[in-house]
């Protein structure tokens, strides 16, 4: 019994330490992303708290596994958490960023902006974007790809 208790205790402390490390590394990036979506600092902070509070030991092991991009997985968790929220807000073009202007988005062509913003901040699928813009899915994917080309060329 003693070794199990010791292991559980040590494991909990290790998880706490890893979680704090993840928070220090990615908390700001996630908060920036969430703030862009919810447009409210207080709400964004609460979402961030919820995400890190609900992060389980298995999740931590999974997202920090070798070969995985930890931030992408954390952002994916944030997207899932924000899914119900983004369903209730207006279109991307109608809202103004409260944090600061995204220099990459500003450099994109209008169609690229709509596709990137709709998918990145509003969690829309390729199919939904294609239906909304009345364009084939291949075109939406192409616009998205071009949007990333803009980001990469302006890093």
């Amino acid at each position: 019994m003693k070794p199990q208790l010791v292991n559980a205790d040590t494991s909990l402390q290790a998880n706490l330490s890893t979680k704090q490390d993840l928070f220090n590394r990615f908390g700001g990036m996630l908060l920036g992303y969430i703030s862009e979506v919810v447009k409210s600092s207080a709400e964004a902070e609460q979402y961030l708290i919820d995400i890190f509070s609900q992060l389980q030991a298995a999740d931590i092991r999974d997202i920090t596994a070798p070969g995985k991009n930890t931030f992408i997985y954390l952002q994916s968790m944030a997207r899932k958490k924000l899914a119900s929220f983004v369903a209730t807000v207006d279109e991307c073009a109608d809202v103004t960023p409260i944090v600061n202007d995204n220099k990459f988005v500003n450099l994109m062509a209008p169609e690229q902006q709509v596709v990137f913003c709709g998918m990145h901040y509003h969690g829309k699928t390729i199919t939904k974007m294609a239906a909304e813009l009345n364009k084939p899915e291949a075109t939406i994917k192409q616009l998205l790809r071009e949007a990333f080309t803009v980001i990469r060329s302006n890093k």
Partner: protein
Amino acid sequence: MIQQQYIDSGALEAYVMGSASDQEVKELLYMKATYPEVNFALQQLEVDMEHIAQQMAVIPPVRTWGKISETIDELIVRPVDNPEQYQTDKDDHNFTTGNQNNGPHYIEVESESNTMKINKVWKWVFAAVFVLGKIFLGFAIYFYLENRQAQLQINDLKTELRQLKK
């Protein structure tokens, strides 16, 4: 090349933005495992996403980690217990409680019970008290009867004395 066509299709971008369907994810994982070029392109996109996030990062308020830590602290386990406290003595009774100074370690259910555990020594003490009690009771009855008999004899003697005086 099929892998280049796949990279150019925009499927990787949809995946990193979480917009890919289950079928597209399966296809991507297969392509990623099969073609190193696809894996490399995906890693590049993930770095791009990270770069966008860094650009838009907002430093969390100092209190934020404190709030997260509070919710975690509620789950911290109590100090490690000593297994010896769960062992019985050689007579297989009387659980020892080695860590009594560290606060309660059990759910208090004893007060609800109608029974109690005592040391076996008390069995002999109770037996001795019972036997002594019987002996004292016997003496008490004996002396009571003796006393009553004596009182009767005294009364008889007093009656005889009065008759003689007359």
